[in-house]
């Protein structure tokens, strides 16, 4: 029997990135969805052959323009582990602060895109307006809006003055208060509930079966968060992973909404606990050439990222590999898209918070 085929992507306004799906429809019910990626694959991992390890961090930052801080940090942390560098405490705290700010930035960006996908342009605009404030903080403290290049192997390039940290915290808390109103709309608007509630339900069992990560699984009732591992000063922070149980698109939105608040709170704790003062050390330069290998895991806005770095005693790494969260979440997305409505497809794709350039590198 005849069915409609909708070529969803690579150029499709719902998702600025080139994700490709062939949607096979009856009316608007998705009978089958044939996915593919590869429109954005650059071959970034091969760059280790030509870029020396000291500069590879700049390449790694450009895996993705949304998670660039975390990627840079992950790379430096990996090299620090291989080269046994002790990073000064203040630098570690500063990394945590930036990481959490970047999580807020990413979530706001995503919430806006998600709202636009289900036709709520107003929310999109408001989320992105708030996101600009975060970008201003980044620009003030690192010099870049998108690509920050503030991480170094052994520490960070810049310090943030204590007074400025306090100002940032105040600004974030103010933003958090304003964000409450936006979050209320997401959580209570009936038309949003119609579009997201009960749509794309990933059960707890399914979430485990497809090895999904991040907010995706937390929305399905699994309290997992790489930050709980305690590395990168998170052991000194008091926080609980945000968990929702419904597993639908709405739950995934709610998880991210609450994580914005959570991140602001984590930043507060970090600024509270970090050693204060002018001129504290923020960088320990490593010596020699790296040799050895390491697996590094950390929690990005989209979930757990795993880096593998292998060095063989030369200036060039032998292997760098990043398994990004979206890579782990794509099987879940494919599973959810089958059987939904055409109108649900953007919501399902977006609620996994896809980052295709992360995925394909």
């Amino acid at each position, binding site marked *: 029997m005849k069915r409609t085929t909708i070529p969803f992507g690579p150029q499709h306004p719902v998702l*600025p*990135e080139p994700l490709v799906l062939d949607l096979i429809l009856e009316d608007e019910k998705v009978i089958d969805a044939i996915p593919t990626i590869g429109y*954005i*694959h650059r071959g970034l991992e091969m760059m280790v052959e030509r870029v020396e390890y000291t500069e590879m961090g700049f390449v790694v930052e*450009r895996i993705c323009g949304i998670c660039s801080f975390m990627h840079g940090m992950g790379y430096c942390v990996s090299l620090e582990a291989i080269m046994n560098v002790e990073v000064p405490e203040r630098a570690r705290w500063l990394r945590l602060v930036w990481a959490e700010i970047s999580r807020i930035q990413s979530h706001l960006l995503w919430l806006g895109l998600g709202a636009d996908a289900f036709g709520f342009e107003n929310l999109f605009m408001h989320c992105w307006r708030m996101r600009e404030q975060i970008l201003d903080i980044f620009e003030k403290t690192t010099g870049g809006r*998108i690509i920050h290049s503030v991480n170094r192997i052994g520490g960070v390039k810049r310090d943030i003055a204590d007074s400025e940290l306090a100002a940032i915290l105040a600004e974030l808390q103010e933003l958090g208060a304003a964000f409450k109103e936006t979050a209320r709309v997401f959580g209570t608007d009936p038309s949003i509930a119609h579009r997201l509630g009960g749509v794309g339900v990933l059960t707890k069992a399914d979430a485990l079966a497809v090895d999904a990560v991040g907010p995706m699984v937390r929305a399905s009732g699994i309290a997992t968060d790489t930050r709980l591992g305690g590395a990168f000063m998170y052991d000194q922070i008091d926080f609980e992973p945000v968990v929702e149980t419904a597993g639908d698109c709405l739950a995934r939105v709610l998880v991210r909404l609450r994580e914005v608040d959570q991140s602001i709170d984590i930043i507060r704790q970090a600024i509270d606990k970090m050693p204060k003062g002018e001129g504290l050390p923020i960088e320990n330069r490593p010596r020699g050439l790296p040799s050895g290998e390491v697996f590094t895991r950390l929690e990005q806005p989209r979930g757990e990222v795993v880096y593998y770095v292998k060095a063989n005693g030369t200036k060039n790494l032998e292997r760098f590999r990043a398994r990004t969260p979206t890579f782990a979440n794509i099987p879940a997305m494919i599973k959810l898209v089958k059987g939904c409505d055409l109108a649900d497809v953007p919501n399902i794709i977006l609620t996994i918070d896809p980052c295709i*350039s992360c995925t394909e590198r």
Partner: protein
Amino acid sequence: MSFFSRSPWILHYDGSSCNGCDIEVLACLTPLYDVERFGVVNTGNPKHADILLVTGSVNERNIEIVRNLYRQMPDPKVVVAVGACACSGGIFARAYNVQGGIDKVIPVDVYVPGCAARPESIIDGVVQGIAALELKHRMTA
């Protein structure tokens, strides 16, 4: 002056960009930059667009897509390469799957530098694109 300068509709396509320039293109539409003040609309459809904004480089796979989108745009049309990757391939120029800047496939009218390109530069690029559009319109009219 024709209506082209007052109503430039854009189409954004993400080649193999890292998302950096993409989100800056989107940011242009949002309250802080609000390019709709100049009549700019993000159409999402080549058949409606006057200006093609491409971010990221071309690779084996998306080269056909870029060509197709450009072909589907009705004349007069202008291409703006946004960011280092779209201009030249940028930091990834030598990666095995990157073929280079957008000008490898389609004629580029305006190059917007930056990694990532800042919204101000993108808006500036679009404004220069409008001038090119106006010129092309006058040449064909």
